[in-house]
């Protein structure tokens, strides 16, 4: 397999992982909104409420930075990263 094809395979793997995490916190948990309600979440808020106003939002921020770092590592591994002076 060519270097480029390998790079794309890894990139696609990372995408799938990123989208899976995204799916859990944007859609998955809200299937159980009513069930999570009686659980006390961080800082004492009801768990469902906490996810909608802080939890999911914060997780998305972290997820994007994590994704960007992982993708950079993949690019470096195959020598596809950009020159610093770009």
């Amino acid at each position, binding site marked *: 397999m060519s270097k480029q094809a390998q790079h794309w395979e890894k990139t696609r793997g990372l995408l799938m992982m990123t989208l899976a995490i*995204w799916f859990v916190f944007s859609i998955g948990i809200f299937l159980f*909104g009513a069930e999570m309600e009686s659980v006390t979440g961080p*800082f004492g808020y009801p768990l469902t409420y906490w996810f909608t106003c*802080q939890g999911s939002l*914060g997780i998305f*921020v972290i997820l*994007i930075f994590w994704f960007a770092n992982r993708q*950079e590592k993949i690019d470096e591994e195959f020598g*596809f990263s950009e020159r610093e002076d770009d």
Partner: protein
Amino acid sequence: MMKGNFIDNLPKVYGIYTGGFIAFIIIMAIGEQMGMTSKAIGICFVAFTVAIYAIIGYMSRTMAADAYYVAGRQVPTVFNGMATAADWMSGASFVAMAGGIYFKGYGYMALLVGWTGGYVLVASLLAPYLRKFGCYTVPDFIGTRYGGNVSRLMAVIVLTVASFTYVTAQINATGTIASVALDIPFQYAVYVGLVSILLCSMLGGMRGVTWTQVAQYIVLIIAYLLPVFWISNKMGAGFFPHFMLADEVARIGELEQQFGFVKNSAADLANVPKGLAGITKAHSAVNATPWAFISLALAMMMGTASLPHVMMRYFTTPSVKAARKSVGWSLFFIFLLYSSAPMLATLSKLSLIDPALSTGIIGKSIAEVQAIDWYQNWNQANLMFVSDFNGNGTLELNEFFMGGKAVVLATPEIAGLPYVISGLVAAGGMAAAMSTADGLILAIANALSHDLYYKIIDPKAETAKRLVVARVLLVVIGFAGATIAAMEIQGILGSVIWAFDFAMSGLFFPLVLGVWWKRANKEGAIAGMALGLISGTAYLVWVRTGGSGFLGITQLTFGIFGSAVSLVSMVVVSLITSEPSAATQKMVDEVRVPSGKTILGKQH
């Protein structure tokens, strides 16, 4: 002017700017103590901030195509994040969001999840690849990836429909704030707003818009966070509201139990002024079905990834790597405001309904409430209303009505903060609406001038002529938007949500599959854009004219239907027509690799 070292000096420049703005707030506060009228303070806040934006806009003037279209591709990661956050957070986010949460609770908060989760899609599926492509506009990508003028034109049409729907709402919002702060009729205020918007973008294009948006972000975030923290501290709810309002949320739940949600009769409701609502839904409890919540969040997420005025912000970063990081920073800066909106809604609601607090009005006598200063002010502005439906002389929860905007605009006054904070909030709302309107008008004008005029009508046009055309279009589109806004056809929030649905119906899959599916071809893309937009629009019209809809898809989520049609038609048509040329496939391979030259040249 400062060019070159301007970029290196950015932290210093905006540091001084922020310090200057805080000094201005302090001067206004001193002025208030010395007897400045609230009207004068309002005018000063709006005039001062708009003047600063205009100066930045003038200093960023340019005659180079890449500076005009993509700010010279040298906007640093963090600053592009701030600019995107301002570009993104519109009058709806700033003025209407906390109000929506206040009235509708959990069901509405799907918008918070949707408007942030979409950035994960932007970062992982699109932004870095479109940056590598080196396009000036979103239709530039569609037109080059799929080839042919028809696909480019289709993309221009979808972009225009979505962005224009959105921009009328923003000009409407600037007009509303300008009319309140400057005390002039709405019909004129709309044009005052428009002129302010054009001052930022006309001379400098994307470069001007970038640096004014950073300045606008700083104003709007200070204007949003300062009151939230202040009110929370004043009420003794906690010095860092985001982590400390659990007791207040629980207390609202208790009061809801105690008061109950009494349903008003239609005859009683007929007396309530249009646009005002009472508290009829639980504050923090789950009050929507999973599908109602998820479908709205999903539509907003896919819409986010298809809206051209957001996507084009990532064309301005120096590299592909920077584009990815920049999406993270954008969402971080958006998170600061979005995570504060529910806190503001909580503080606002509790201070109004808790009889144990001095600001609480429920349980007081109607005459007493009607005598309160702030009640009279906001009643006059048509944003508050009380009526003694049951005739017992005291105000019940179901007898108090408020406009959605009042949560952000009136809470500082209700909580007893000085007027200077209300002036600051007006300046923040103006910044939020202006920055989004600028991004949208520029997206439309750039698509028409670059893709329609230069790429399709007159490919030989010189740069100078192209940039003149771009500016003329900017003014024309601005005026068209303002004229429609002055007619006040739809509410702010409704049309914003529609814009997301239009964009996702026509553009989501053609953009994503353009990068991720090599087999996608021109015929498929055209079918996807055309049928997606048409079916989405048809569904909207059907539901609006009394159609029952299906699968629980409402007029707010019609994009789910449109984009599904778009996906199916794009895949089917692509597969029954011939695969894209070897050159196109090679181009897709190159887009997938961050290093190397962009697909389109620096100047094109």
